[in-house]
């Protein structure tokens, strides 16, 4: 089972780049890595997904090294509205081996 481990919390000042790393040492060949963002009183929201190397969209970048045992979510120039809990998920088709991490609470400071 591809259990995931994330830091519990992080603080960052506005305008800085934030990198949140997730460890998934037992990731399988057919697992995909996804990151979610959750604001208070809302369900998590999908933000980015990848399999290997680097993926970038309008919200974030995702870096996955060749061994895929970890992944790093990068948020460029964070603002106060990026304060949220960020979860990584490792999953494959079939849904019987998906695992959410415990989440990283990011606090952006003015």
């Amino acid at each position, binding site marked *: 089972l591809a259990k995931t481990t994330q830091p519990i919390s992080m603080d960052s000042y506005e305008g800085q780049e934030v990198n949140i790393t997730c460890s998934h040492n037992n990731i399988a060949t057919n697992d995909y890595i*996804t990151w*979610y963002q959750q604001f208070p*009183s809302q369900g998590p929201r999908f933000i980015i997904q990848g399999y290997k190397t680097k993926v970038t969209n309008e919200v974030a970048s995702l870096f996955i090294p060749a061994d895929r045992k970890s992944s790093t979510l990068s948020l460029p120039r964070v603002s106060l509205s990026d304060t949220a809990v960020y979860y990584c998920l490792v999953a494959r088709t079939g849904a019987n081996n998906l695992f959410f991490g415990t989440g990283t609470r990011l606090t952006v400071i003015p």
Partner: protein
Amino acid sequence: DVKVTQSSRYLVKRTGEKVFLECVQDMDHENMFWYRQDPGLGLRLIYFSYDVKMKEKGDIPEGYSVSREKKERFSLILESASTNQTSMYLCASSTQVQVWEQYFGPGTRLTVT
């Protein structure tokens, strides 16, 4: 806009009561999921369903059951609620293949007294 709705945002029930939490999705997704979310424990999968009338246990199925009679609707049932089931319950859905891209409802905060 894709949508997953849950029947209640807040629910208060007494110990021993039977509790139904309902979830509806409008994206014609094959997969539906029920999670509970507790401080420090993240999201834990209770049950998921990959088709009508089909279900699989997740990591913490004890004390829960589920029902999926229609593709768009997935219900979580607490047969006899207990105080340790006080939690935030989240429903999600995904396509059959892209299990990693899930769409979540707003959650139901259940308190069992």
